[in-house]
């Protein structure tokens, strides 16, 4: 399709941040001004590129295909005078696309400027602060600055804290709750009782204890398990109440 026999294979779909980015690339490559381009021409370029990429059996994200469909529709409208006339009341979708491109282009450029700032400020290091020297117990409080996320991350942290430092930080509890529930389900027939320490086995690591404890809390909360403790730090005695545990209920 391209007049000068230029192949689009040289450009890789993965280099783009989406259909708008690809469109901007095609426009810039042809040294066109975003505001005055011929949509039909750019649409052709775009469609050709998507077609070639598809032929190479490369995965194309849905957004690219949606844009291809939109461009095709715009093109077909251009060829139909009746539709053009009808469209005069509503805004021309091409104008709208152009405005969107201008806006996206501006953000893209800002992102590049932010990248430059990042490069400079990455090289700047702050003193660690001297809180420790002056305050043993800091009360930190500022409503609105803490979110549910912090609470969740704190929980996550608890399950990870006692594990050996992993090479890659894995964002996952060490023992899944469903595994714990499954184990408890097997260990505890309906109506039976068992000590928590028996359930977790001899010499469990802290992560196992935490995972089981959290599972027990959840089961208690659901009224499927009751617990008793005769005195602080004594073993927690668990008693199964419900017959069936349906965690996904």
């Amino acid at each position, binding site marked *: 399709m391209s007049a000068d026999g230029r192949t689009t294979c040289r450009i890789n779909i993965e280099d783009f941040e989406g259909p708008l980015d690809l469109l901007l690339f095609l426009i810039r490559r042809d040294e066109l001004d975003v505001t005055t381009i011929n949509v039909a021409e750019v649409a052709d370029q775009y469609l050709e590129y998507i077609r070639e990429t598809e032929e190479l059996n490369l995965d194309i994200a849905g957004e690219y295909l949606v844009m291809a469909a939109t461009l095709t529709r715009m093109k077909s409208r251009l060829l139909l005078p009746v539709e053009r006339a009808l469209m005069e009341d509503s805004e021309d979708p091409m104008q709208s696309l152009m405005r969107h491109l201008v806006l996206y282009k501006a953000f893209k450029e800002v992102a590049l400027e932010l990248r430059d700032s*990042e490069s400079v400020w990455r090289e*700047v290091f702050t003193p660690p602060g001297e809180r420790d020297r*002056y305050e043993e117990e800091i009360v930190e409080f500022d409503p609105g600055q803490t979110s549910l996320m912090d609470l969740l991350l704190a929980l996550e942290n608890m399950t990870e804290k006692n594990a050996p430092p992993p090479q890659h930080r894995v964002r996952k509890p060490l023992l899944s709750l469903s595994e714990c529930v499954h184990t408890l389900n097997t260990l505890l027939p309906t109506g039976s009782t068992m000590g928590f320490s028996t359930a977790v086995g001899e010499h469990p690591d802290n992560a196992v204890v935490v995972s089981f404890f959290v599972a027990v809390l959840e089961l208690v909360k659901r009224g499927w398990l009751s617990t008793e403790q005769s005195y602080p730090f004594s073993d927690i005695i668990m008693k199964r109440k419900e017959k069936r545990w349906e965690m996904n209920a």
Partner: protein
Amino acid sequence: MLDQLARQIEALLVATETPVTISRICELTGCGTESAEQAVERIEAELASGGHAIVVAKLAGGYRIVTDPDLGFIVGQLFEGRRHSRLSRASLETLAVIAYRQPATRAQVEAVRGVNSDSAMRTLLERDLIIITGRQETPGRPLLYGTTSRFLEYFGLSNLEHLPRMDEMENLLKLSVDDIERMASELSGEESDQSI
């Protein structure tokens, strides 16, 4: 040779964990705004004339003392393996949209970028560069996101007005939110087709 007020302020700017505002400096040292600002200038001058490795940075609405960026290649070694990677283009674009548009919903970010921005937003939340600020009172009550003071520090900005091209972006964004969202729904082919 620094005077007593400047010494006190210098100590604050070194010991603090977050930038200290001028008003906080005044509060802690008992001096006036103008004296505080002049003292900060004396600190800067004295650090420069001694050839020191640290500088006063104006960040996120306040001041703090940081190491000179030209020594980053040395200091960075201390934190080898712990330094964050650079932000991806997707994250930077997402951050840019949120910064200018804030508070912004995810749908608005995705409308402007034209692509799913889920993983970029997740990265930004995890790195404390954006934060959930509330909910939009529209159907679905989507969450609203804004930038944090960490964001300002990360890019060496003293406040949001110092974002690059603020004027230009403000004008572009006068395209109302509705406009952007409508464009997005047109792009995703969901427009109510009036021509049929």
